């Protein structure tokens, strides 16, 4: 995985192209939904929100509520979650120098799953909660999962290998999943809800979810973007990176913490949406080269576009019914990824 050397101009072109794709995905995502809204109505609603512009869109109050309180926040949330999962996947793959690494590697998914299951099974007993305890429990669970993994794996976390940490993640995930399954079986009337959470969902997306996760995502994205060059250095090996004056342990820690924090926040509001963290970064590498200077920003952009489009399929294909987003990401993502893999003629 040598960092491709590309001229700055080409890099800018790639970024611009990616942003165009994302913009297209966002526009299509907002325009199309289970409830048909007139194109002109949506456009003038949008223009009406600009300063100094006053337009009557011709949309009814109901349509306006559908657009601003249901559809747009959902598209935005899908974009944020997709961007975060793809970025976290890219970061983990770099830090662990393991192409199979995904954001759920270090116990985030298992921890969040346990938290969510506990909230679903025992939450209702605490009637009168001012807020929905589920996202909070999932978020805390995810952070506990990563922390346990880190505490267990750190003892032996030599600069040379990260295998110990990955194995600690596997052990932690199995342990937490065992507890989760136990709770789920004890409170077996919750099975369907837990299952539906595990498949991932954006059905109930609103601005509240967007504002809940935004701070964590910003911190996470900024931290990883600032370290993208160091990810390139890590990819040539710890000794070489060390000889270049990089504190590899510290860089790893910062990136892992940032990626895990962002993933925990994303998972808390959307459940376990699989596959995004693996296929988006790899597709970016196959199409644009493996330099993290490009992989990091492009994963953010394409991750957002991919999940916006996947969610669009999920909410329109059998509209007005929904298909779980996790089903779509794997069903669309896997063949798409295989096509890219074959066409590029190489296995990264």
């Amino acid at each position: 995985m040598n960092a491709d050397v590309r001229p700055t101009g080409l890099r800018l072109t790639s970024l611009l192209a990616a942003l165009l794709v994302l913009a297209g995905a966002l526009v299509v995502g907002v325009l199309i939904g289970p409830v048909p809204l007139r194109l002109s109505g949506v456009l003038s609603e949008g223009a009406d929100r600009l300063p100094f512009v006053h337009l009557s869109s011709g949309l009814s109050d109901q349509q306006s509520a559908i657009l601003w309180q249901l559809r747009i926040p959902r598209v935005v949330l899908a974009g944020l979650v997709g961007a975060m999962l793809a970025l976290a996947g890219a970061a983990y793959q770099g830090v662990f120098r393991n192409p199979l690494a995904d954001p759920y590697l270090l116990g985030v998914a298992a921890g969040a799953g346990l938290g969510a299951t506990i909230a679903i099974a025992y939450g209702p007993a605490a009637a009168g909660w001012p807020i929905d305890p589920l996202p909070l429990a999932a978020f805390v669970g995810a952070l506990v999962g990563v922390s346990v993994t880190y505490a267990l794996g750190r003892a032996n976390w030599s600069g040379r290998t990260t295998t110990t940490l990955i194995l600690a993640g596997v052990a932690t995930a199995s342990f937490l999943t065992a507890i989760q399954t136990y709770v789920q079986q004890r409170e077996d009337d919750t099975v369907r809800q837990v299952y539906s959470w595990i498949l991932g969902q954006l059905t109930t997306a609103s601005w509240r979810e967007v504002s809940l996760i935004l701070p964590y995502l910003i911190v996470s994205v900024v931290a990883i973007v600032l370290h993208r060059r160091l990810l390139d250095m890590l990819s040539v090996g710890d000794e070489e990176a060390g000889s270049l004056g990089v504190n590899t342990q510290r860089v790893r820690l910062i990136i892992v913490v940032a990626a895990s924090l962002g993933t925990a926040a994303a998972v808390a509001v959307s459940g376990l949406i699989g596959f995004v963290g693996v296929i988006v970064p790899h597709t970016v590498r196959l199409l644009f080269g493996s330099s993290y200077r490009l992989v990091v920003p492009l994963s953010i952009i394409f991750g957002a576009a991919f999940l916006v489009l996947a969610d669009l399929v999920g909410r329109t294909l059998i509209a007005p019914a929904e298909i779980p987003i996790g089903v779509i990401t794997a069903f669309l993502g896997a063949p798409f990824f295989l096509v890219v893999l074959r066409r590029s003629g190489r296995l990264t």
Partner: protein
Amino acid sequence: MGRISALLVCLALALGACGGQPSEPAAPSATQDAAFPVTIEAANGDVGIPARPERIVSISATATEMLFAIGAGDQVVAVDDQSDYPPGVPTTDLSGYEPNVEAIAKYEPDLVVATSQSGLKSLAEISIPLLVHPAVTSLDDAYTQFEQLGVATGHVANAAEEVAKIKSQIQDVVATVPEFEEPPTYYHELDNTYFTATSDTFIGQIYELAGPRNIADKADKAGSGYPQLSAEYIVQADPDLIFLADSECCNQTPERVAQRPGWDQISAVKNDAIFDVGDDISSRWGPRVVDFLKIVVDAVGDLELAHQ
């Protein structure tokens, strides 16, 4: 070879067990109540019950309610963790979703009632009769289950009475349904991610008795009967009535529903026409189906009054 001989054994058993026994309850009579052994044509095939069961284990909440309603409660020794009605049922930590044959056998049952055969096939090996009464799709199927439980427990007359009582109560309640010019629309919420039930389900059929139209019928292209709706669609469909069957599972209340973004546009929210039907009564097809129907009919009636 093994399969063929197993088939022959089954055939022989079925013939033997079936010999001359009524599989459908006829007109109730005292002599028939005492007529054991009986064979019942249930979802898991012909079930032979050699003598009046005295140690019944029910791992179906609906079956539990039915058994107690037909006067077989004294014969029930254990029910699953979901069975909570009528008050005082012998609730245990047995699970109906993940049944454990050993745990069931511990109660030395002479009849087990469940909603599915899955995980329970080995009951046959220890000669415990299993009666499978799956979720029904019509009231008639529910009545059949009442009657079969009557035969299985020796309460044929009581079961027939209970069915007749439910039928007449339903008739009385339905008689109070107002005439509509345009039937109101409703949304039945199963959980807070907008899973719902269509008219094709048992739940939907109860609503049909009261007349409102289901907004989810268009959404069920997969034909499961239980689609997950888009929030946008619910707002656009603008139901006149919202019924919550997720107050226990998911802590939902009319107030919380009213606060959902965009939902203030829905007629049911504007007119305070959101009703808690209870997770249990609306998901069980037992004796309390009348209570469920009453809530629906009252809601529809209030709506019509408000219109006048």
